[in-house]
């Protein structure tokens, strides 16, 4: 990226400020820039240049410090929370927030694991890239059972925006025509292995209501001209994505939205700029700009724009709103409803099951597929007999055991070495990805006294999985085991876990959309009910979690909101 893209001090009044550079922020910047709007992207962390700063990429295990593990002392002092994320390791640790500098608290008796990616690109570098649309059943869910408020949008409102972002980002998957999971604009799907195809066929007979499909993922299985023009090539199936990918094989801000935004000449980026709060003008009832604390030297500065998009991650965005207080908004800006910070959700991954697959000894695979299989939520229709509300999807996949699974067996010497050299038995497993109900009690708030090093009040979480989520996970374990056994797997085991919320890293809600300004923060275009030039387009805006991985919906909501904001700006309504 050209040096002049990065700025520090400026008095320019931009057309748009975008707070955050992750999946939502990248999309907001691209869409504004491509419509000819001068845009300032504000990032609290440092710059990560595509390719150049992927310092953990393509490094063989034997060349990595501690073979990919992270030093005990470093983990204890700086990564106590972040280490709980499956993707935390030696060659990704620089993309995770530093827990020493980013303290937060949880209400006594509750737990919440807050995983952070505070650098240019945000969690778009670290995400797991599974991409699914929300469908009509999802948008209707709150209305049907009364938990949470009704989504102010339906499929018809967002369909074309899903298509818009999918074509640019590149989503691999297969058309399935399912009632419960809309298709996307697809690049070819990844292949299934032979046992997966076999299990798929068995499930199709045994559980016709539970089709097993290939996971949909933001990887270029067959790049289009558009992707090549972004500087991206085919996914090489290394599955080392979280270290960064110089091929641009997966969608990230760096690989996809940032080059498009920068190409327009309309983009500036202010890195190392921690947003303290929004500058509000009560007379005009508009946001004028943002107050910044410098990430490094803690000095203060301000940036100005006609419209502000808050895309700082679910919790980050709401923290900024809560810390922006004024006479009119003593409890956080745009919070006349009083629901800001409430209805915090995550997904629930607390159920796993697996078993041995016999046969297929002459079958293997090559490459490391950065995706698995998916059984979309089969409880999409409410049923009071089920005993809990909403449902779950099942993810999973098959693999042949390698040395690491086989090492536990008894044995020493040449025989042992030769056994570990061979590919072992096939295994197939499922994990649940459950919906979490939107509940008022589950919330984040500003700590009354504790602050971080930038002088910003720390977050206190008060979030629990409810009985509904626990019952759902028990059901998932039972159903998964039953399905695996029915498909002929042996040594089937399953486990319902009790992990705290947060670790799905699918934080959602806290500044929800809605039709009624009295019970929601944002309208159906992610625009603040209270302040017309303020938008929040990341996960904070969600009314329900559904079961789908949410990032694709962040993209579509953001692109749609920019389109709306640009029209409103032109009409001088904001």
């Amino acid at each position, binding site marked *: 990226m050209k040096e002049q893209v990065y700025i520090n001090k400026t008095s320019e009044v931009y057309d748009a400020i975008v707070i955050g550079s992750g999946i939502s922020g990248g999309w907001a910047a691209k869409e504004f820039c491509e419509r000819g709007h001068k845009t300032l992207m504000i990032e609290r962390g440092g710059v990560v240049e595509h390719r*150049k700063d992927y*310092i*953990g*990429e*393509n*490094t*063989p*295990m*034997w*060349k*990595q*410090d*501690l*073979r*990919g*593990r*992270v030093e*005990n002392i470093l983990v204890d002092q700086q990564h106590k929370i972040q280490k709980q994320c499956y993707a935390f390791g*030696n060659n*990704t640790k620089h993309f995770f927030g530093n827990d020493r500098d980013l303290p937060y608290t949880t209400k006594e008796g509750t737990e919440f694991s807050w995983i952070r990616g505070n650098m240019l690109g945000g969690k778009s570098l670290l995400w797991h890239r599974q991409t699914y649309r929300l469908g009509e059943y999802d948008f209707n869910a709150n209305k049907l059972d009364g938990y949470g408020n009704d989504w102010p949008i339906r499929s018809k409102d967002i369909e074309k925006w899903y298509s818009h972002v999918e074509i640019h980002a590149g989503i691999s998957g297969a058309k399935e025509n399912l009632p419960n999971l809309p298709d996307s604009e697809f690049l070819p799907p*990844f*292949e*299934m292995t*032979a046992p997966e195809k076999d299990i798929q066929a068995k499930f199709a007979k045994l559980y016709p209501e539970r089709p097993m499909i290939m996971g949909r993922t933001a990887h270029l299985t067959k790049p289009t001209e558009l992707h090549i023009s972004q*500087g991206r*090539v*085919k996914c*090489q*199936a*290394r*599955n080392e994505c*979280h270290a960064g990918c*110089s*091929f641009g094989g997966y969608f990230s801000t760096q690989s996809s939205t940032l080059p498009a935004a920068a190409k327009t000449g309309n983009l500036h980026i202010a890195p190392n700029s921690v947003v303290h709060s929004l500058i509000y003008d009560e007379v005009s009832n508009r946001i004028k700009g943002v107050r910044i604390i410098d990430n490094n030297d803690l000095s203060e500065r301000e940036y100005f724009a006609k419209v502000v998009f808050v895309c700082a991650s679910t919790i980050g965005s709401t923290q900024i709103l809560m810390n922006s207080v004024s006479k009119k908004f003593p409890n956080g800006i745009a919070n006349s409803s009083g629901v800001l910070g409430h209805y915090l959700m995550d997904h629930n991954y607390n159920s796993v099951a697996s078993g041995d697959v016999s046969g297929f*000894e*002459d*079958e*293997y*695979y*090559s*490459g*490391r*597929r*950065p995706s698995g299989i998916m059984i979309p939520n089969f409880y999409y229709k409410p049923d009071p007999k089920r005993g809990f509300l909403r449902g779950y999807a099942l993810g999973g996949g098959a*693999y042949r055991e390698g*040395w*690491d699974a086989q*090492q*536990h067996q*008894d044995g*020493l*010497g*040449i025989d*042992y*070495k*030769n056994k*570990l050299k*061979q*590919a*072992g038995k096939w295994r197939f497993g499922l994990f649940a990805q459950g919906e979490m109900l939107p509940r008022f009690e589950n919330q984040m708030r500003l700590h009354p006294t504790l602050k971080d090093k930038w002088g910003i009040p720390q977050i206190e979480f008060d979030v629990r999985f409810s009985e509904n989520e626990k019952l759902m996970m028990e059901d998932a374990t039972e159903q998964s085991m039953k399905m695996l056994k029915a498909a002929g797997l042996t040594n089937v085991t399953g486990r319902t876990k009790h992990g705290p919320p947060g670790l799905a890293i699918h934080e959602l809600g806290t500044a929800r959309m809605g039709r009624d300004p009295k019970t929601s923060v944002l309208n159906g275009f992610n625009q603040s009910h209270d302040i017309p030039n303020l938008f929040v387009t990341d996960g904070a805006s969600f009314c329900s979690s559904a079961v789908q991985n949410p990032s694709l919906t962040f993209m579509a909501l953001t692109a749609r909101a920019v389109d709306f904001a640009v029209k409103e700006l032109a009409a001088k309504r904001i």
Partner: protein
Amino acid sequence: MKNDHCSIHNAVDGLTGESTSVTEKQKQSRRRFLKGLTTMLGGATVGSMLTGNAISVAMAYVPSSDSILTDGKVFNKAQLTLLKQICAIVIPKTETLGAAEVDTHGFIDNQLFHCHSKAQQKRAIELLNLINRTAEKSFSTLFLNINADQQFNLLTELDRGELRFDQTQREAFKELKRFICFGYYTSEVGATQELRYDPVPGGFKGSIPYKSSDPSWSTRGLFD
């Protein structure tokens, strides 16, 4: 065009100092990796990018042939010498080098110190002491002085938790075996010569033929 790739390949090999140790298969993978990149970026950028991808080479454990000559970070010289022999018995030299030849014992000493708890370090030391104590009880001499069959049988009993050993001791040995396997199969020899190494597969194929003489993949995704 083809020559361009070759010269970049050589240039990169030169920069990373790998030209003498990489196998033909690795070179092919590397060429594929570079081909994709050079198509987009041109050679100079690729060269600098790859040399930049060296997160912790300076800190990575470098195998040594004389790690038993001095005390380590967790084990003393005598314990390292004993551990080296255990490595040689668990994963011996065959057509490929074994765990002892690639200094898995030195690696374990370093890894235990940096990445594992004091309790695990203590357990490993106690296990080594147990092995010597058992040898002394049965043969009135240290483990290293008994013959190869006696050594193999003693460790086999320990591995099964039978006769002279109990289940707790067996678990401690399983833990040591995990360290040995991790050290060996993530070493350059273990990953690239004993197993199949393919850093840049170029794509995913869901079905390829397999026969039992084929080595399994050593390369994994980061978080499989």
